[in-house]
């Protein structure tokens, strides 16, 4: 009990004395101090690649980058935001929502059908999926399963970019919550 209080005092004193100086110094050291294991590039065997209607403009450079992972498996998923369908259902009724859902499913399957061959040509084993869910939470959850070594995501995933926000808030949230490497294109 006493030791716990003393350890808490140490933490508080550290904040008072060092402030944010340590973070600045540690950042500076990180620029040139790497452990041997940190110098080794992580092996990528499986990739998660979520897309939506905002993120279909895929640059050629991304295909070139993904070519480096030939032999890996890639899960290409299309996610429709469930909150949008919920709002439609609340405002226009269930029938309209169902119509929109069907339209979205058709668009998603067509999109995945168009994208998959290009990725397969890179030597990747592609699996596709489509579902309605939360774009941020579902991607975070999928990455947290440990089944994927790399996330490939458009900076426009979830919303159109703006001049003030070049990365969509959805992508921003995702990269903050996962530990695996990410390619943001």
């Amino acid at each position: 009990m006493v030791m716990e209080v003393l350890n808490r005092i140490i933490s508080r004193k550290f904040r008072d004395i060092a402030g944010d100086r340590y973070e600045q110094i540690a950042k500076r050291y990180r620029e040139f101090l790497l452990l041997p294991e940190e110098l080794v590039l992580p092996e990528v065997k499986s990739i998660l690649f979520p897309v939506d209607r905002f993120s279909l403009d895929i640059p050629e450079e991304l295909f070139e980058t993904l070519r480096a992972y030939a032999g890996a498996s890639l899960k290409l998923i299309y996610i429709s935001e469930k909150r949008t369908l919920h709002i439609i259902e609340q405002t226009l009724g269930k029938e309209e929502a169902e119509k929109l859902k069907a339209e979205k499913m058709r668009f998603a399957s067509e999109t995945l059908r168009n994208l998959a061959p290009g990725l397969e040509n890179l030597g990747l084993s592609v699996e596709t999926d489509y579902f309605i869910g939360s774009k941020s939470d579902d991607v975070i959850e999928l990455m947290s399963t440990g089944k994927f070594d790399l996330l490939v995501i458009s900076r426009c995933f979830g919303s159109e970019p703006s001049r003030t926000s070049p990365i969509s808030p959805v992508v921003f949230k995702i990269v903050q919550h996962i530990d695996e490497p990410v390619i943001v294109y």
Partner: protein
Amino acid sequence: MDPALIIAVSVFLFTYALIISEKVHRTVAALFGASIVLFLHVVPWDKLPAYLDLDTLFLLIGMMIIVNTARESGLFEYIAIKTAKLARGSPMRVLLLFSIVTAVVSSILDNVTTVLLLTPMLIYITRLMKVDPVPFLLSEVFASNIGGTATLIGDPPNIMIGSAANLSFNEFLLNMGPIAFLDLLITIGIIYLAYRGEIHVSSSRRQRLLSVIEGLSEDEAIKDPVLFKKSVVVILSVVALFFVHDRLGIEPAVVALSGASFLLLWSRQDPEGILEKVEWTAIFFFVGLFIIVGSLVETGVINDVASWMMGYIHSTGEAIFVIAWFSAISSAIVDNIPLTATMIPLIKAMGSSLNTYPLWWALSLGACLGGNGTAIGASANVVVIGIAGKEGIRITFADFLKVGLVVMFATVGFGSLLLWLRYAGV
């Protein structure tokens, strides 16, 4: 009883309690206490300049400006990489060299900055060696506090003592330098004995470590080569001036301020950015404490306590031990800055019946080395433990206490014995 005396003692005790509890920032506690004694005229406004020790304040500000300007150049990262390379992959050499470099840098610059800049490198090397980082970090902490004891500018208590007793840089170096040097050797010996099983790596790992360390470029750490050279020139010039300041008849604070202003002028660094990084909270902590202790002097409390103590202390030899051990044990629990601020007028008041010259060294010894006793005894301890925690290395209060108390008793015991032999022994 005089109401002013009651207010002064109450404010002093309340402020001390707040500082120990860490419930509020120590600067806020000190400034709040100071504002009460000023508001209630316990310390008259016109007497304020007499209690504010400008030598201490300006010496601290000057050195902080120099350190913050030099930091921008990458000088300290350069020193850390150079030290790592010199160790050549040997854990014993890492222990020795980092302790020595920390002690030397701490004797010139403030301990917190020194450990903030050297600890990440030390943790990196211990990770490469795959050894327990705790003995290396503890050795660094103790070395920092011991190094700070060696010079007038090494630790805030020494700056305060030097200013109050008008002691020169050379007097500090001659009296405290040898004690600090021998205490450093004793400390490294204690660390080695306590952790000798853990300070070992296989020859194959040592070879791998060597190749990684050799791959580091100290030149890469230098962010601004021109500023780097200018910083080195100014720091060396300032240290050289400290050696002769008494012969030139200038105060140490003037040396530090001159060095700081010259470096700002020469380097063309943005003064706003540099001055922003001065630890104003520490400076105002001193301001608050000087006023609170001033209230004790003003109301006669210090004289009364000194007279009471003189009833029990009969010789300089006794006084050396009492002051060294009282300061050491108190510093292990309380911040050594308020302790020193309180002890200074007390020792001055003892001057009527004792030779106070050796007592200043006893105070320096106790106030600086007592901090090694516990994890909260000195700012450097807290900073290293905090950094270690952030890097996933747990050093608990109890872990620190086990080694810290041994180091404190050994170094203060040895130091006070040397002082006694020199100034009071037969």
